């Protein structure tokens, strides 16, 4: 840890590393906060589908405008991702196909179509298209200050919208039926929230690429979920985890050759998840194991002394729902 901090400190003067780390932090905050909704609404894989679906949009934007300006390419990405999200909502509503099937199909078909368009782009004589494939795996090193500003602008807009529609999105995530009975435009909110998730995905494309983007959306939220039962703190934590993992991953990747930035960020954030799953108070596996041991000890002690209590006093786990179907109906545990 200390070593890491030192390397962070000594490398901070380096312009490239600082830019990349800042970009990763921006990405971490945005995707961490918005990922909370995705995870709570059981749409964790939406991000994966959206990021793959963004590819044809990027290439199309390039073909139409002939520019590699990040803002325009991301606009195309957002357009395609949003189209895929709308198709997802409409196909699941009009057919009996399950969401995962439609996700998988849209993901691969959009991506395939993107490959077709990419082939067209590569035939263009300008040869500026070399930059397009950076979105596949992400090339953090190509991120410049202007890109970070673009990402920060988009991300800030998304966060403002989250704050503005805080109560609506919260209700939509936990109890959409109740939201509908209150007269909230649930379908519109659904489309809006999905659009925000698309925004989070788009922000990260250049940083970590289409394949790893889903982890940036899911991991901080899952980690944060283990530490709290409240949405506000969960989002705050997810933002911090995301930003922290972004910075650590970026700095680590600069420390040695061959440590690609995207994968390093994903591994950092996944370590946070692993730690949280094991050691988070009350929900964590280690915590639960100690709890079981203590209960067993108490029970043994009580039985030896003859007074078997009818109910063993334990701290209730936050998720006392052994039946997954019940948990599903409540839809609150993540």
């Amino acid at each position: 840890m200390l070593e890491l901090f030192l390397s962070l400190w000594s490398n901070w003067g380096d312009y490239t590393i600082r830019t990349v780390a800042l970009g990763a932090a921006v990405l971490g905050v945005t995707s961490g906060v918005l990922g909370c909704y995705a995870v709570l609404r059981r749409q964790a894989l939406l991000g994966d589908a959206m990021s793959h679906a963004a590819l044809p949009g990027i290439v199309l934007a390039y073909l139409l405008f002939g520019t590699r300006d990040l803002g325009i390419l991301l606009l195309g990405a957002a357009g395609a991702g949003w189209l895929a999200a709308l198709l997802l909502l409409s196909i699941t509503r009009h057919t009996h196909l399950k969401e995962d099937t439609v996700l998988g199909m849209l993901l691969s078909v959009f991506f395939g179509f993107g490959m077709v368009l990419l082939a067209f782009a590569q035939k263009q004589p300008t040869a500026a298209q070399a930059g397009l494939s950076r979105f596949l795996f992400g090339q953090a090193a190509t991120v410049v200050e202007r890109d970070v500003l673009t990402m920060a602008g988009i991300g800030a807009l998304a966060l403002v919208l989250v704050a503005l529609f805080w109560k609506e999105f919260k209700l939509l995530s936990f109890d959409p039926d109740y939201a509908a009975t209150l007269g909230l435009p649930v379908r519109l909110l659904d489309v809006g929230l999905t659009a925000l998730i698309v925004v989070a995905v788009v922000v990260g494309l250049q940083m970590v690429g289409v394949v790893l983007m889903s982890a940036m959306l899911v991991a901080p939220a899952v980690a944060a979920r283990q530490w709290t039962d409240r949405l506000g703190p969960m989002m705050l934590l997810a933002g911090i985890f995301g930003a922290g993992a972004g910075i650590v991953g970026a700095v680590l990747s600069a420390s040695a050759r061959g440590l690609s930035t995207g994968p390093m960020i994903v591994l950092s954030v996944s370590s946070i998840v692993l730690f949280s799953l094991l050691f988070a108070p009350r929900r964590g596996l280690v915590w639960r194991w100690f709890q079981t041991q203590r209960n067993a000890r108490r029970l043994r002690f009580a039985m030896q002394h003859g007074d078997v209590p009818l109910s063993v006093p334990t701290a209730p786990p936050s998720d006392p729902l052994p039946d997954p179907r019940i948990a599903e109906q409540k839809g609150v545990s993540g």
Partner: protein
Amino acid sequence: MTSQQEVQLIAAVIAAACALPGVFLVLRRMAMMSDAISHTVLFGIVVGFLLTRDLGSPLLFLGAVLTGVLTVSLVELLNQTRLVKQDAAIGLVFPVLFSIAVILISRFAGNVHLDTDAVLLGELAYAPFDRVVWQGIDLGPRALLVGSGVLLLNLGFIGLLYKELKLATFDPALAATFGFLPVLLHYSLMTIVSVTAVAAFDAVGSILVIALMIAPPATAYLLTERLSTMLWLSVLLGVASALVGYWLAWALDVSIAGSMATMTGVLFAGAFLFAPERGIVATARRRTRQRWAFAQQMLAVHLHNHAGSSDEAEECSPAALHGHLRWSPDFAAQVLQRAERNGIVRREAERLWLTEQGCRLAQTAGAG
């Protein structure tokens, strides 16, 4: 055989091999597991390569298949802690394995032909150049042999365990009480999916594997409700998209894999819009028909209720429909026209009479 024909044959065989297990993935709501497996396969290949230092070693194949099963087990493990939902578990597991694989490649295997672009996209066009030669006899392209083997394996698996798979898919609880070991079936199916993904992956890349596994069965599911029909229809649709996709790619000079994936999407869009019973168009037409039928029924009930009452003359006139049934004048006129044509209503000047058929309609509507 020319190499063009060989490419088509490979594409068709792999499309068929993918569609078969894909049907069960779609029905068992595990479509996204194919996404996870097709990405993590890379990890197995890289580890296998680092151990053997030989890209042609069968250990790579084995390693990739094992990674697929490992992915499924890790997802289940996370899911069983009840701290993470299944979809989130998938979204956590495969990026980790994929990240490790990418780092291993760039750190230890950067100079070999294991570049990550080929992993995502595959290169079908080069498949015929990688041939299996045994004792001087050319047995054909490796991708074709592997693909055919996997196709046979999948056919055999589904043929042998058809009834078990069917029951475990549609009624897992009953399957468990019969002693069908759903967990074992689940893992066998996942092994089959991994084997198929690895075989297909070499030729067409990891994304097209998902398209070929999910899209044709999803399309078939819109067209039929019978498992056996769905199976052969998926194979047919998969092969069709592979061949049409190949020719489109050839004509437009674009990526074969991408064009095949696009075709699976086009076929799905076709079924989504025009499926005979469940398509958007068929549903819209049915709704319109039902709307007119219902309106005529309402008209009949209205006339029947007021027949013989004191306000009969006033209520049973075309003008009353607008106010009484809250129909717009246009709509009322159209309903009346249809009702007359169908022999439900007779019209005498400004007075409407129910025919005998109309009476029966009103009575059945009241009873129903």
